[in-house]
């Protein structure tokens, strides 16, 4: 369903992605792990064409989206839902307007139908009753849940999560993870998350891709990654710093 071929991207002469290759099948739940600043979010943004690659292809159901213009991409993006690291809620709108944004834009639903759909997804993320609040009145965890509701309301085929649990306490992180797992199970979507939270990665994925030095270093089922004795994977999974990189 999703295939990335020899994807390259540089910023200011620094190669962030240096020939990335992988495939993700329909219905899979995949997590991309890697060091901070290693290009995980850049890779995720290429999957929905928010960034254009320097070289390589991003195929969505066989169609290379890297060569489409912004208007052609609108149709492709209808298949995607995305939860941003900062939730990226529209701060001039209420929760209801944020969550119902896509349905209102499509113009195929009455206001009553949109309100009912919004209430339904807000109930799913356990935030029913917050419809009239502004994003500024919500906590970080609540904003992420609203972001998730906004991403799933139009039933996309692929869901992308950019650091879904970063900056949240362990209890809220667990709640978000359970929600993501529930969404994958209930909506049968393909799920791709970027994180460096290994606890979260274990809970929400079937397969893990590890991005290291601009390339996919490992592509294995989740259990194998956690059992791996490869020094780079082992250190990352268990959070052990390389002594050579520690300076006082």
């Amino acid at each position, binding site marked *: 369903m999703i295939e990335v071929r020899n994807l390259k991207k540089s910023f200011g002469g620094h190669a962030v992605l240096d020939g990335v290759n992988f495939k993700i099948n329909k219905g899979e739940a995949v997590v991309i792990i890697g060091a901070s600043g290693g290009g995980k979010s850049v890779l995720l943004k290429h999957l929905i064409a928010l960034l254009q690659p320097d070289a390589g292809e991003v195929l969505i159901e066989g169609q290379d989206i890297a060569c489409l213009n912004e208007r052609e991409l609108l149709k492709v993006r209808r298949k*995607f839902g*995305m939860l941003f690291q*900062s939730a990226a809620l*529209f*701060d001039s709108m209420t929760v209801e307007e944020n969550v119902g944004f896509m349905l209102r834009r499509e113009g195929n639903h009455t206001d009553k139908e949109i309100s009912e759909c919004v209430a339904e997804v807000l109930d799913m993320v356990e935030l029913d009753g917050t419809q009239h609040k502004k994003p500024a009145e919500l906590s970080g965890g609540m904003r992420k849940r609203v972001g998730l509701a906004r991403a799933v309301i139009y039933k996309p085929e692929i869901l992308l999560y950019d650091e879904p649990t970063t900056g949240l306490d362990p209890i809220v992180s667990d709640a978000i993870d359970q929600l993501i797992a529930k969404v994958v199970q209930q909506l049968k979507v393909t799920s791709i998350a970027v994180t460096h939270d290994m606890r979260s990665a274990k809970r929400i994925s079937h397969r893990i891709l590890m991005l290291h030095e601009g390339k996919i270093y490992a592509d294995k089922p989740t259990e194998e990654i956690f059992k791996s004795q490869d020094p780079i994977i082992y250190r990352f999974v268990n959070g052990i710093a390389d002594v050579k990189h520690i300076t006082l």
Partner: protein
Amino acid sequence: MTTIARDFIRQWLVGLGRGTMLVWETACSIFRHKPAWRDVIYQMYFIGVKSQSVVLITGAFTGMVLCAQTYFQFHKVKMDTATLAVVAVAMGSELGPVLTSLMVAGRVGAAVTAELGTMKVTEQIDALRTLAAHPIDYLVVPRFSAMFLVMPLLTAESVCIGISSAYIIGVFLLGVDPTYMWYNMLRYAGWTDMLTGIIKAFVFGAIIIIVACDKGLNCPQGAEGVGQATTESVVYASISILISNFFLTMLLNRILTGS
């Protein structure tokens, strides 16, 4: 020095190219897609209604000071009753559109750039794109349409207030004969002066909103980036208005009066 000049020219050309593309995409969007009238009306309220105090004060005091200065000079040669004619021509074709546009660039242009810039740095524009909404359709077109409709009205309002204020100052403070002053204004200030001002208002409105949206949509990261983009938006729009005003004056004078 050479490097600085080269960078400046390169940046200027890049900005000009980006602005041209934005105008083209906005025009295509307006003609190909149904505009969101609710958003257009809200933007008309934001641009038009909320600029009332700025426009009224600018128009009134410009008309008053122009009337006083013209009277002081004309009084020396016993041409007091031509004062309002000069005010009407100057307000209608030059000061009305230019000063109104500069004030709107400061109030609306800065606000639009800051809003879009903040949306850019907080990933709200990326979120729009993931929700299959084109930023040009959703953010630029309603603002452009509203500005295009409202700017000539604000200019006309400013000109009317300026002439009215000048009349009041001329008659009640400076003691000019009201009948002759009004007669001379009708005689020397023609429809071409007013039409020149209105055409300029359309062009200046388009400049303000295109510069503001371009700076906002291409805002550098961080709070500093938003501040820099906002400043640049006001400065570039103001300079563009002043420069284009000269060329528009020459062109419109040739077209409308044939001289």
